[in-house]
């Protein structure tokens, strides 16, 4: 897990996924690109398949943005932006990760235990190909550009 040094930034960005499983890496790649784009304006974490450890990674943050691969049957590259702050978000959009205790479960466990950050925004990108060793597919790569731009914009607005 790569983590920038802690600082007073109010936003924490967490990219999830598996680098070796094609489009499943989209959240990780987005996190890397966001780190390059905004430097110290937010804390950026590449969390890979964090599962329940997501709770620990969110700890202490007021505002969290998660980026993960999604699979709801919509067109590859479709971007979902969901606000998990106040109520559960649809598990149908995210594949039960290759680990049963996935992103959605971790968020709901955090909520049940009263440790969910005040604001949690989840960006999901619909995947196409998640075979081992494949690069991002073209539609997902295009969606990645947009997700990165939107999150960078969110962070800049937060700092304005």
């Amino acid at each position, binding site marked *: 897990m790569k983590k920038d040094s802690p600082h007073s930034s109010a936003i924490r960005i967490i990219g999830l996924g*598996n680098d*070796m499983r094609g489009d499943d890496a989209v959240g990780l790649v987005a996190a890397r690109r966001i780190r390059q784009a905004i430097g110290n304006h937010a804390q950026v974490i590449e969390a890979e398949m964090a599962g329940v*450890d997501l709770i620990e990674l969110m700890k202490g943050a007021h505002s969290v943005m998660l980026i993960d691969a999604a699979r709801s049957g919509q067109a590859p590259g479709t971007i979902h932006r969901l606000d998990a702050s106040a109520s559960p978000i649809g598990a149908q959009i995210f594949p*039960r990760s*290759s*680990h*049963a205790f996935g992103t959605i479960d971790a968020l709901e466990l955090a909520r*049940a235990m*009263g440790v969910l950050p005040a604001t949690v925004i989840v960006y999901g990108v619909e995947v196409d190909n998640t075979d*081992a060793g494949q690069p991002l597919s073209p539609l997902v790569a295009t969606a990645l550009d947009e997700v990165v731009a939107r999150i960078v914009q969110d962070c800049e607005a937060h700092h304005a």
Partner: protein
Amino acid sequence: MTGKQESKSTRTIAVDLVARVEGEGALRVTVKDGTVQDVELKIFEPPRFFEAFLQGRHYSEVPDIVARICGICPVAYQMSAVHALEQIFGLQVDGALRDLRRLIYCGEWIESHALHVYLLQAPDFLGYDSGIAMAKDHPAVVTRGLRLKKAGNAIMTLLGGRSVHPVSVKVGGFSRVPLKRELEALKADLLWARDAAIETVRWVADFDYPDFMPDYTYVALRRPDEYPFNEGQVAVSSGLQISANEFEQHFTEHQVAYSNALHCTLHGSSYLVGPLARLNLNYEHLTPLAKQVLADRRLSLPLRNPFHGIIARSVEILYALEESLRLIERYEPPPVSALPVVVRPGIGMACTEAPRGILYHLYRIDGDGVIREAKIVPPTSQNQSRIEQDLRLFMPRLLHLPDQEVALACERVIRCYDPCISCATHFLNLDITREGAA
């Protein structure tokens, strides 16, 4: 989620997911005239894709690639890989480097077992449909479980560079070894965790367990001097004891028509790997404290009830914490972080004890150190026939129940084996077909 299709003679129940197993798969049960005819567990296997993906890669890339097969047991994949490759190169990793490998494996067991005990299986015994629902009523218990898991994470993060996909394990040793004081900094949390692990064993030992004791063949690594992680002979409860090199002479993978996964059998029969098998075959190597905690709860081995897997897992958490403290206590940094490798062509095999049981790797490499063949047999594939057989044995006591309750009970049986279906399956749908009289 349960769906139902009915006709005059058959009834089919479909459950889209078996929740709280590590990943997803599919189960099909056929009942005819009130008797269970067939049980088929379908799984898909990412390791198979990785076997092909590894061909043509340099041996030095293998630990990093196989770590990504599974987010729950990356160390196991790395360890079986480096041991198999080291066999080809004639390397024997000893001393502090061997201890560090044992230590990082302890971290993985603690992390994986704590997740399963607290969030995946305990809800079955306490009447909750998920760990999340349980957390609402028992926040202190779940907090204890998460803190235990964190103690395992801390070991993996220090030794592996990070907790999810460790990057420092390599053929010959590590890319970096810790300082003594870095390991000592873990001690306070590990001591807390050891006490929490004792509480965990006591907690799970008091659950109500169904009376169910199939006749198992247990398979686990065994050594004369220690509880197994990285090394040992493959021991069978019948008395057979072989080296990993002989694994494929005794254990055979079969294609089954209903699944793209391979089933592994021992001389044609099912067998059990994992914490229950390990504990039963290695009881004498437990620490006095772990033995005492078991004795206090009047638990005598062998444990033969698969539902007692949660007890075995809890005892192994305790063992792994005590072993971690012992290894840290005696640690002195090794003179080199990794032994030098002289590449030579050959074939190597290794078994190590993943949290869920024996993980077999085979590699054949050429003179340039390039992988020409890779074979991976994960523990869940080995337990698959046994899970099916146990479902067949358990099912008769469920048949009077409505379909949905049968499905939930099957899920509870499947969860006993902590199937790391990320290693073995993606989507677990449950179909029960009832033919003739229901």
